[in-house]
């Protein structure tokens, strides 16, 4: 399953690289040549402004992945750091942290991102920021729970008695236990971020128009869907395959304890 997911990812990356290497300009318009069929010049045809769909889809995938990766990296770092520190500090700090995550997880992340991204009108970075601010809670809960379990083990206690500094204990004893679980969460988080970012771009919130993004490409081609239904296929297919691959990669490392994480995508 996992190999299959990696294979799909590799195919998508290869596609993006090949198209980018061809050097077709994703912004170049050719109004005499709109809705062209696939040809050697335009591998997937052209859109309503005569722009090369393949080049735009490749650049769009790159953009989606970039922003999704940024949001996942941010929330993962923040969440893991806070989770481990919370577990290590214990007491009131920990319960305040838990209450905060509880609150944030009840908060609709997509609406928050829409709110922030729509009001700031500064491209995709406000959306990334707001996704980080809502998504860190999951990583925090997970890493805190694991850190608690590890901290109760005798060898950690022995480490404390030996007088090792806490940074050393956390790095050598606690962190390695967390990595696998966080990787699973991150893979799902990446899938979710890609879907969120492109949904927001689909409704017109996010990247500014000429910049290609998969969700925006789909919504741009909607008015022409009656005559040319197939121009929505390349961006939709790329996005769906990528998300599918990420879910496959994540499901392999899935353990009993977080069996339901995969079902929580929506």
């Amino acid at each position, binding site marked *: 399953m996992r190999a299959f997911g990696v294979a799909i990812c590799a195919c998508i990356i290869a596609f993006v690289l090949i198209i980018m290497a061809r050097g077709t300009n994703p912004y170049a318009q050719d109004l005499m040549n709109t809705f062209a069929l696939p040809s050697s010049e335009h591998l997937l045809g052209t859109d309503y402004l005569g722009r090369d769909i393949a080049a735009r889809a490749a650049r769009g995938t790159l953009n989606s992945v970039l922003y999704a990766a940024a949001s996942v990296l941010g929330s993962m770092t923040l969440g893991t750091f806070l989770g481990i520190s919370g577990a290590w500090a214990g007491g009131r700090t920990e319960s305040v942290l838990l209450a905060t995550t*509880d*609150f944030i997880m*009840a*908060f*609709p992340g*997509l*609406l928050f991102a*829409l*709110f*922030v991204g*729509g*009001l*700031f*009108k*500064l491209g995709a970075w406000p959306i990334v920021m707001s996704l980080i601010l809502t998504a860190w809670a999951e990583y925090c809960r997970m890493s805190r729970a694991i850190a608690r379990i590890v901290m109760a083990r005798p060898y950690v206690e022995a480490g404390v008695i030996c007088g090792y500094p806490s940074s050393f204990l956390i790095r050598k004893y606690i962190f390695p236990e967390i990595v696998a679980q966080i990787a699973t969460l991150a893979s799902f988080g990446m*899938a979710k971020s890609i*879907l969120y970012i*492109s*949904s927001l771009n*689909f*409704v*017109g*919130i996010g990247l500014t128009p000429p910049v290609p993004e998969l*969700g925006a490409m*789909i*919504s741009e081609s*909607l008015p022409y*869907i*009656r005559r040319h*239904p197939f121009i*929505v296929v390349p961006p*939709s297919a790329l*996005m*769906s*395959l990528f*998300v*599918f691959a990420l*879910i*496959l990669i994540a*499901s392999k490392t899935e353990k009993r304890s977080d*069996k*339901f994480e*995969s*079902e*929580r*995508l*929506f």
Partner: protein
Amino acid sequence: MKKVVGILGKSILRGLGIAFCVSGLCFAVAHLIPGDVALEIAMTRYGESDVGIIDRADRVREEEGLSLPLAVQYLDWIGKVARLDFGISLIDKTPTLPVVLRALKFSALLGVVALGFSLCVALPVGIVVGLRPRGKFYLVTAMLSSLIVSIPSFVWGISLIVLFALKLKWLPVAGFLSPTYVILPAATIALTLSATSSRIIAVSLAETINSPYYAFARHKGLSELWTLFFHGLRNASVPVVTCIGMQAASLFGGTIAIETLFNWPGVGLLFLNAVTSRDIPVLQTAGIAMGLICVAVNTTVDLLCLVLKPTARLERLG
């Protein structure tokens, strides 16, 4: 009983907290954003290329009290909300509460139909698959549901529109004029909902069937149906109820792309329009309403779980 009171108390606190945070957040962000709010409102109200737009912006500033200090504006607003006066929309000057309630009604209609469709598919599929955890269908449906979830809901919506509205012409494309208009958006939402809930049903049923008490009930001679109905379903239903509750909460505002695509006058579309036109009072009212709905759904789920699972009554209140 003590537990019920605890859950209710906690949810009231949480509701107040959410209302407070949402309103504060709306307020803070509205005044942090680059650009002049009064100018934006004037542009939405009177058109972008109006000549006297600067004067009109000044008039908007006076009318809406936007030149007062922030703290005064915020306290003023809180005081009004306490008297259930949610203010009037900055754009079309109608009271926000009826607008939001109307949108909520449409979202609820769409959500109920979508959940109904979804359960019609998910319950039979989930139960049939979950009863045979080692069967072929278990893996096949797992893959299938991952695949369905991977395809963004708006792409499903476009495909359904192309197929059923444009090619076959069975159903209307978008908007809301008669009850048939609800079918396509609801079916689109139901597709992704049923993919996840059928999985949850299958997994939790499979887990129940594999548990020792279930095997014991079978070994003491109870029939398969009796065991399933009187021993299995109740235990298996706890995660299912939680999942469906989460789905129900997400339908209020979480389906912006679908509501935009089908031009459905629900709360997601209202929120989107309010964001793009910077209509802060509408945003605040809608935000509070959605937060409260979220809390209400979570509370209902907590209480239902208490009824379904006796051991939950013993757990410490988190």
